[in-house]
């Protein structure tokens, strides 16, 4: 992996808190294995007789996987608080939008 030079600091201090992390191959492979395990788990869950909870199980595992990808592969766990907040607010908005449609879908 190529090492990036730090961008020049501006008077506004735009890049002051920004750091570049290099993730080792070991950690990348470990993350990949975690994702593979979770995929296997998704398949396993479909074999269980969980009724309507089957969908919730699959969604929960999928969300966990997305979280791992965002945190490690997309470097979110090394980012500053502002960026993490922005992502959180965006995902929360999406969750509310989807969640509110269930006032309709669940009670129809």
């Amino acid at each position, binding site marked *: 992996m190529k090492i990036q030079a730090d961008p020049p600091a501006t008077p*506004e201090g*735009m890049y002051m808190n920004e750091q570049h992390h290099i993730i080792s191959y070991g950690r990348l492979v470990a993350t990949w294995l975690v994702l593979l395990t979770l995929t296997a788990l998704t398949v396993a869950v479909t074999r269980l007789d969980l009724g309507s909870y089957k969908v919730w199980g699959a969604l929960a595992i999928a969300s966990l996987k997305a979280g791992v990808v965002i945190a490690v592969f997309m470097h979110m766990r090394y980012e500053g608080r502002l960026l993490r907040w922005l992502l959180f607010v*965006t995902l929360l*908005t999406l969750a*509310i*939008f989807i969640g*509110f*449609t269930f*006032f*309709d*879908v*669940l*009670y*129809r």
Partner: protein
Amino acid sequence: MSHIQQPQTSFWNDTGKTGITSWIFSTDHKRIGLLYFYSTFGFFLVGVLLGLLLRIELMAPGRTIMGPQTYNALFTVHGVVMIFLFIIPGFQGSFGNLVMPIQIGARDVSFPRLNLFSWWIYMIGAVVILTSLFTGGGPPDTGWTFYVPFSSRTGTNVSLAVLGVFIIGFSSILTGLNFVTTIHRLRAEGMSWGRLPLFVWSLYATAWVQILATPILAITLVLVAAERLLGTGLFDPATGGDPLMYQHLFWIYSHPAVYIMILPAMGVISDIIPVFSRKPIFGYKMIAFSSIAIAAAGSLVWGHHMYTSGMSDTAILVFSFLTFIVAIPSAIKVFNWVSTLYRGSISLEAPMLFALTFILLFSIGGLSGLILGAAATDIHVHDTHFVVGHFHYVIFGGSGFAFFAAMHYWLPKFYGRRYAEKPAILAWALMFTGFNITYFTMQLLGMQGMPRRYYDYLPEFATLNLVSTVGSWILAGGLLIMLINLFRGLWWGPPFEGNPWGGATLEWSIPTPPPTENFIEEPLVTHGPYDFKGTGIP
């Protein structure tokens, strides 16, 4: 535009560049603002013509000037043009671009090239929408809402039209990103959040709605196209799909979009009322906060469009409750504007007349909105002309009149020339009268049960329909006088110099018209946006 001789060195001529390329490839926020202004306002005039034709068709029962298919296409195109090509991009693109960077003491927006790119995407989307009218199966006839299952089955050119709207969505998202970044990072020294003009606060709240809600419209429209081209069956019950899902997805964006249309308008009003009352705004913090509250709460009320669609009773209860909550921050604003007027030294010039009209018409629209927000009364007037009247009171009487207020208030600043006052007031009087005759009648018709989007109607609705159509002519007459007077003044009128309105926001502290870099020296902000004493203005 470049043929106009400006009295002094300004962004019109100080870069030495002339010709069309100095406009369409300019990264100056003021030039981009004017590009947006002329393109969006041009589409507004197209929408007005279509609206007038629709009113002529409805003047008398039966066929008047067009057939039913043409009528369906015209009300669809009227809606698409007015909403997606005029009022959503209009405020942010034109007055947001023209005024906001100057109001916060910046030389330009954060990403000037992205800003230009937004305008280009907007124009490309507009061309695609216009192409859809004349190719394939002809102009779409679904209404601007593109409801399934009709939109997935009709033979008209829906696919191309939704592609155009999809493209324009990117323009909206990029403008939103640009404005949020600009307001966070480029405020001048001393321009704290508590000193931001309320127009900037409203643009900030709007920008967040654009960023967070627009992608959902994009996805929804892609799904409609997939339904038509690939037959995915997502919205078709026969294949396990759900037509109501379309309505949820569509309104998750399109209800917040109503706030993209009205919030900047409220910002304009908050800037104009104190200037023409010679008084600091009443309740600055509450107005700023209510902009954010409207943006947040307004994003959670989309279900109130679906009370008669077969949605669950629980959802109707929840969405009805949330809808009433949005009335609170809206009422806070109206209360504060009226309190600003109280014991002010009011001067009734054209921008102020349009601003005061906004308060009245928006309040009528808002109160009729409560009738629609309550499920019990909504079921009576759902999909009638009452809804059409309500929507036009809020969006035309509200946002439209605020747009005219902004045109009279800010455009002379950028042209350095002014319009004549008396014709402007005559135009306002005609428009105000014509507006109420046209749309209040629609509310009455709706109460009597005349459905919206119907080509023909029963004889008992004939008188009121005729009155409404005559009203639309008075409205159009006023609009015509306003246009001639305003643009004649801006292009050839007497000079407009200094700070004739006596505004305390930063745009009034720089030369007229502004130079390309806006500020000759870096501004240091020492007073609030409505602190008229602090600026030394009597």
